[in-house]
């Protein structure tokens, strides 16, 4: 019975996760055919070539956690408001509003930002009040803005969930025992919401490790991330083996990030159950 229930999910994982990954591994040890694509071989040349994309890996490994932390700074107060402060009657509507942007493709929303930040957008409004020649588009700031905008809901939701199930009596107990609001927050609320925070940070970090669209569109393609390297290798130079080797390495990096994140989460959350993945 259990086997029958698990079968569809297992089949799905095998067909869409395991098999593609095996194909990628096989490709990663192959060679690029002279006209591009893949030809069978067994070589470590692709992995030996990884240092040529060291900058891309470095940029990605810096951007992903930085973007996730920035997201966290914006998301936590929002989630706190939604879960604790907001009028319960409107809570559902407010939570829905956080999710609604997901109904439109991230690509389209990012294009919208290109027009908002371009010189006919905000800089044009600023010039009306005498602030001239402001450049927003194709700057690192625009990339960070796009990332926070794009990934914010993914950070808000897990934090919201962990704050919402917070036992209010603990806060009352803390206040009864003489704690000021600030120390109640740092001593009770924040630690109890950490599982949600860690889930959000891990989720956003992992997605950011593969991000290439936002740097491309809002950063002017001048900063090279591992996602951009992959797109170029598959869609421009058609070097599938090297692209596969990078993709395999990226998967390995994601696994390491996840394990580190879980370990930290376990540590800070003490003995409590951590619902990270």
């Amino acid at each position, binding site marked *: 019975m259990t086997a029958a229930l698990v079968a569809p999910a297992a089949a799905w994982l095998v067909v869409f996760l395991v098999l593609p990954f095996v194909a990628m591994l096989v490709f990663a040890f192959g060679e690029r055919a002279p006209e591009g694509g893949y030809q069978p071989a067994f070589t470590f040349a692709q992995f030996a070539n990884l240092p040529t994309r060291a900058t891309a890996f470095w940029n990605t490994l810096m951007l992903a956690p930085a973007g996730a932390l920035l997201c966290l700074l914006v998301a936590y107060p929002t989630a706190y408001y939604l879960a604790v402060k907001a009028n319960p009657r409107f809570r559902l509507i407010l939570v829905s509003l956080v999710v609604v942007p997901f109904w439109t493709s991230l690509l389209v929303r990012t294009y919208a930002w290109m027009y908002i930040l371009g010189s006919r957008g905000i800089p044009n409004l600023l010039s009306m009040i005498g602030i001239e020649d402001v450049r927003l588009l194709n700057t690192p700031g625009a990339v960070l803005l796009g990332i926070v905008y794009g990934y914010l809901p993914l950070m808000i939701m897990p934090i919201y969930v962990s704050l919402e199930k917070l036992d209010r009596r603990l806060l009352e107990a803390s206040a009864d025992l003489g704690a000021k609001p600030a120390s109640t927050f740092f001593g009770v609320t924040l630690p109890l919401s950490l599982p949600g925070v860690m889930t959000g940070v891990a989720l956003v970090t992992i997605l950011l490790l593969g991000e290439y669209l936002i740097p491309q569109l809002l950063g002017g*393609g001048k900063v090279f991330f591992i996602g951009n390297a992959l797109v170029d290798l598959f*869609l*421009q130079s058609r070097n599938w083996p090297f692209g596969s080797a990078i993709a395999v390495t990226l998967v390995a990096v994601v696994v390491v990030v996840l394990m580190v994140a879980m370990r930290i989460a376990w540590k800070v959350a003490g003995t409590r159950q951590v619902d990270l993945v």
Partner: protein
Amino acid sequence: MTKWYRENAPITAVKLADELMRLKRGSVTRRHFLGVTGLGFATAVLARQPGLFNSTAFAGDLGSQMSIATWPNYHDPATFEAFTAATGVAVEVNVFGSNEEMLAKLQAGGTGWDLFVPTNYTISTYAKLGLIDELDMSQLPNYDPSTQNARFTHEGMVDGKTYAVPKNWGTTGIAVNSSKIKAPVSSWKDFFEVAMTEADGRTMVHDYQLTTIGNALVSLGYSFNSIKSDELAKAEELLIRVKPHLYAINSDYQPAMRATDAWMTMCWTNDGAQLNRDMPEIAYVLGKDGGEIWTDFYAIPKSAANKPAGYALLNYLMAPENAVKEHIANGAPTTDSRVLKLLPEEVTSNKIVYPDEASLTPLEFGAAVTLTDPGRAELMARFKAA
């Protein structure tokens, strides 16, 4: 040069749709958008009811369905509707963002395309990989080699055999906003110098190694197609020196040029003509030191499911009276003197679309090896990561 086509015609629903496509095209450049988003397999079935238009003359031979792979906004949709009305064959249109993507799909097999539109430098690769056949010219009576400009047809020949016939040609030049940049820009050497001075922070280069590295090579006096390591090293040195001064590395340059966020960019013919049409201060110049000239071709995949229909559509498109509508719709220059005669004067007198012969002399066709050279791919990666 405003509203240079169909000036006197009242607008019809089809033309309105055409205008909307144009508007859309103005803000998002075709190949890049698809390339960067991977939306290459976006498919539009233009005529879903072939039975409605079945004509007895062809129906038996041609089947009821065929498929073409091409670039976005590259055809007049009315052309396919008319073809369906004449033959009963419905045309499915698949649009792609890059030659590489097309090649990958065809290599993987099972595309079902009966006709597709590769660019000159990929033809020999397709032929070598056995993905396309020599064309059976007896099935293309409307194609007349004697009215074709030989400059554009020879890229479709491999070992003296015709594997592909030209659709239209074009150039890769410089679009420069003359109201912002006063320094003269007439060569790629000027382009890179102005990019670091007057157009500092306002210049765009393609996110495409073929043109970005090629034009950097040209500015240094080398061939657009060079794969010599010492010449590439000098081009790399130049590109990395220019990079901090660039506005963006992006082949989707129309939005930035229109918003005057960018003042100068590497630019393809069609985009140059559109930018100039809507903003006359944006000039389109060809490098007097060289650059790229290109031709997009029609070819028939070896794996085509419905070759008779592929040939029928190709033959239909080669008829000057049909081709002229295609050229008016997509704006790129024709290779066929019969079509040239039919085109309105406003189109053929546009120097962006039909430049003087002399200005084309220094230009080079991209070579197959230029596109596939691993050294150039790695150079581009280092440039973008720098």
